[in-house]
């Protein structure tokens, strides 16, 4: 009942028009000032907006759903990332638009897999094996890029396997733990988690390791109530602590400048101080796209993109973006609460937690409220794998709204049969 009313009151087409208007406005900036018409950028923006409208209209026609909050938020965020890329150069914009397309394909793929829990059940082992394989492959051919080993190069594109593993991590966790399992399968999942986090530590990707660990704790919490789950958490915590100690010099260096960035303005606090200086310079309404100075700082379009958006688009938009991430998590919570199936609610809650935790690490890391860990901002940071994983995780949240409540679903029947 409540759901139907909400669906009616949510005028998705109106919101989409508003978001599109915002996008046209920010895109048009590239054509007003340019001396010669930038045809390439025009195609990129048109393709993006076409994709946005076509996807939502098709989705509406096929599924007859009217709640497209999540998709519109994701398109809104992706569009901002695309503008940022375009403000650097055409190449960035083109690659980013391709990444959004790939992200959307991943999104659809994950939705299709999630639709049938039997298929999901079946895929959990291959997904886990593939994840571990990817990480192992990463470790073998890793290129040290800016202190971390989490990049590999495939056909001229740099790929971060750990980003792709994120989706699999939540997926495998939700499938494995959807109902009371044997100790054996729990142990398997524990081993899987520990291996993933361990591999990330070996890559020195402390930020992503932290995100995985946090998600692992959420999964464990969702399952807790029995001794084994608590055991899961404490093992995980001990492991995390042990790892931190093992890599102490590296971690300690990371933390050394935390809350002391102004004393280390040209060393460890370089990025954070520039972010704060230029965020403040931007004021509430920003200095205009391309008018900022943070863009000259390393990683401005990736890790520091939130600072760049605040400087050029203004703090108000920055806060609006953060609220949008909050809304994604809120959607997950509300939909999960209504869901009959444990798999869907678990997947949604974990995926949402992962996204929001990563946003926190990114935004509060570059503004020195948390230690800087060098993670990307979902949907907005420039980068293909980050975009793919963001849309993939979004599908896990979307699935609970689409399929989580279906009474005819085999998985739900089984759950009901077990009683509570």
């Amino acid at each position, binding site marked *: 009942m409540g759901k139907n009313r909400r669906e009616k009151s949510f005028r998705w087409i109106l919101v989409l028009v508003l978001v599109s208007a915002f996008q046209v406005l920010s895109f048009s900036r590239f054509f007003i000032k340019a001396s010669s018409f930038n045809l390439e950028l025009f195609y990129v923006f048109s393709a993006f907006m076409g994709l946005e409208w076509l996807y939502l209209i098709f989705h509406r026609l096929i599924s007859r759903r009217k709640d497209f909050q999540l998709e519109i938020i994701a398109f809104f965020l992706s569009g901002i990332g695309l503008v940022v890329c375009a403000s650097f150069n055409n190449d960035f914009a083109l690659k980013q638009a391709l990444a959004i397309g790939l992200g959307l394909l991943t999104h659809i793929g994950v939705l299709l897999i999630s639709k049938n829990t039997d298929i999901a059940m079946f895929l959990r082992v291959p997904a886990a094996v593939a994840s571990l394989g990817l990480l192992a492959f990463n470790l073998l051919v890793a290129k040290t890029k800016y202190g971390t080993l989490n990049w590999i190069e495939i056909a001229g594109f740099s790929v971060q396997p750990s980003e792709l593993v994120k989706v699999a991590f939540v997926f495998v966790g939700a499938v494995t733990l959807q109902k009371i399992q044997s100790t054996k399968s729990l142990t398997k999942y524990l081993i899987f988690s520990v291996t993933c986090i361990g591999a990330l530590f070996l890559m020195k990707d402390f930020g992503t390791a932290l995100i995985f660990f946090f998600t692992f704790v*959420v999964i464990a*919490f*969702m*399952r*807790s*109530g029995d001794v084994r789950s608590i055991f899961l958490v404490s093992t995980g915590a001990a492991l995390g602590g042990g790892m931190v100690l093992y890599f102490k010099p590296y971690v300690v260096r990371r933390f050394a400048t935390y809350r002391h960035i102004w004393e280390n*303005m040209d060393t460890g606090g370089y990025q954070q*101080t*520039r972010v*704060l*200086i*230029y*965020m*403040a*310079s*931007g*004021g*509430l*309404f*920003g*200095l205009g796209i391309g*008018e900022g*100075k943070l863009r*000259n700082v390393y990683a401005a379009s990736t890790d520091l993109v939130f600072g760049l958006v605040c*400087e050029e688009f203004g*703090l108000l938009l920055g*806060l609006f973006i*953060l*609220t949008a*991430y*909050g809304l994604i*998590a*809120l959607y*997950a*919570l509300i939909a*999960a*609460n*209504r*869901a009959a199936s*444990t798999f869907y*609610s*678990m997947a*949604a*809650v974990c995926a*949402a*937690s992962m996204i*929001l*935790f990563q*946003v*926190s690490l990114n*935004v*509060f890391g570059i*503004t020195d*409220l948390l230690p800087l860990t060098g993670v990307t901002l979902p949907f907005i940071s420039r980068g293909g794998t980050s975009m793919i994983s963001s849309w993939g995780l979004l599908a896990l949240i979307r699935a609970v709204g689409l399929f989580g409540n279906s009474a005819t679903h085999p998985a739900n029947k089984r*759950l009901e049969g077990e009683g*509570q």
Partner: protein
Amino acid sequence: MNYTTRRAYVVLALIGGFFAGMIIMTFSLFKNGGHWASNRVNAHLYSGGQIVNAGSVFTADGEELAKSFNGKRVYSKDRTLRLSSLHVLGDPVGFIASGTHSLYREELFGYSFVNGIYTLKEYGKGNDVYLTINSKANKAAYNALNGRKGAVGVYNFKTGEIICAVSNPAYDLNNKPKDMKVEEGDTYEGVYLNRLFSGLYTPGSIFKTVTAACAIENTPALSSWTFTCTGEYQVGQGLVKCPKKHGKMDFEKALNNSCNCAFAQLAIDLGKEKLDLQAQSLGFGQAIKIDKTLSEKSILNLDRANGFDLAWAASGQYTTLVNPAHMMILMGAIANGGQAVSPYFVEKIVTPNKIVIYRATKAIENSVNIKPETANELAKLFRSNVINEYGDSSFPKLQMCGKTGTAEVQKGKAPHAWFVGFSQRDDLPYAIVVVVENAGSAISNAVPVANRVMQALK
């Protein structure tokens, strides 16, 4: 609802933490944004270490003290004006912490929380700052100090505008001496300090203002009180001395003569608690707001004082130290019937498109409290000081009231010369403080400085 979905509320906790972070981040930008944005590595504002284009600083009478030109800071062509206004203007780097350049750095860059540094980007220039300082008064004060260390301050006790603020030693911003030595005894001792706002000096007899206020409020039948000065006054094992035998006097005459012996007896009769309380209510021990900065606290500590110490404290010796600006405000309160007005030196801030974004308003200074009757009585006594002791000829046509002080400091060094006071002319509602370090007698060293500055304002 099953147990797993109930546990989904863990997301709510995460959202809560996330929003708390957003609020902290926004608040911290609101609080520190100006400080951050004006950082020297901000490429919007600085180019090659130089300020790109900050706003100008003007005096009340329209002199441009500083402006930005071709990416450099340019100062007034008048050397005396540069020297006399150094401290109130401040240096471009920020050594002089209480100067306009430091205190109004964000405004000069055109920063605001709402617009960031958009003003500077849009107009190529920050905001202009208009001071309350009168260039003639400042120059007169600087010239009158004639190279001696010290401070001069004048403010309108009805509105709070600081008309004159001079601190010496000063250096020329156009020609900053290399390797300035700023330690005690050096030529440039404490040159980065505005002595008016941040200096602390032994007050000598100007402290009799406090003792007199205490006597007026606490000594019964003060009008019939008399004292006979023999040139010295025995307290315990010690002797309080006067420069000469003043003979028999009433209270007014004792203040006119600045008789140390008479004030010693008054203080002993009052007791140190009452004197201490009086001093606290007159603003001792408190940092007083001056524009965007704070004065140094004046200090009276009688905790360990014996009778002899108290007897000397009554005349501003012992361990007592006062801040010149505080004395100026105290004079303002006496002149203004007991109400102390908070002093400021920035009148208004104007954007490049001529919008006034800040205008100073009158504010009452609550840390300096004096009863109206006491203030009026002191004003009468201070007028009597000028008429009977210093002479109206020292302050032609000014209707001055005041008190001098010749504060003994280290042995072998000349005393500090003080004058504190105010004019009773309706068109000159100004309170003044003059302190000249190691200058000698107040009458011949501080009074002429005060007169020259006040004449410049006539």
